């Protein structure tokens, strides 16, 4: 399946990428597994798996790590928000 990934703020700067489309193995089917899958890319990506602070949104709603990932989803990772 193919998903769209977005990264924001300090995470975007740390990774050096703001967004990408990637093909996922079928067994990467929830947010926790997606974090581990991306963390395997290298050191700067490990924060996705190991930081408890980094938030995830699936299709523009903030979600927990147990949330399922489906083909065509828009999935974003970002630090705690600081607007207002």
């Amino acid at each position, binding site marked *: 399946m193919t998903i769209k990934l977005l990264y924001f*703020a300090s995470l975007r700067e740390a990774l050096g990428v703001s967004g990408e489309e990637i093909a996922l193995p079928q067994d990467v089917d929830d947010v926790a597994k997606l974090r581990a899958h991306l963390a395997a890319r290298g050191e700067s990506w490990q924060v996705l798996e190991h930081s408890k602070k980094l938030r995830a*949104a699936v299709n523009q709603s903030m979600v927990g790590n147990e949330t399922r990932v489906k083909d065509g989803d828009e999935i974003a990772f970002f630090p705690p*928000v*600081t607007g207002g």
Partner: protein
Amino acid sequence: MPAVVSAQVSVQQEPFDVSAELKAIAGGRHDIGAVASFVGLVRDLADAKLSSMTLEHYPGMTEKALIEIVEQAKQRWELLGVRVIHRYGRLAPGDAIVLVLVAGSHRGEAFAACEFIMDFLKTRAPFWKKEETPAGGRWVDARDADDAATARWKA
């Protein structure tokens, strides 16, 4: 006279005018007794020597998150109108960042809903502040106090 609830959310670069928004929400209506509002501004702390602040956001999700927060407030209190404006992009010290206006029959619900919306906006709306100072750029850390402020509404 049935209550007409209008909820409007804007995410924009342009400044906003509080009087104009107040008029838009309450003008021509005679059922609104109370309008509570909040304006958040770019602060320059003495030790930061802030030259500017840039607000990044997540287009699409931002509006969705703000609308959800407003809808939650409307379920919790009987409101007669809500207006939320949040700016993004480059702002200077003293510039207004956010406006929340809540109109109701009485002040208790207007104040509570305005504070509720701000508390959730602070922890749920995807905005991130980066401060530019002579020493370089710095992403603002989330405050534990904001998580605590959101948590108290669960009671």
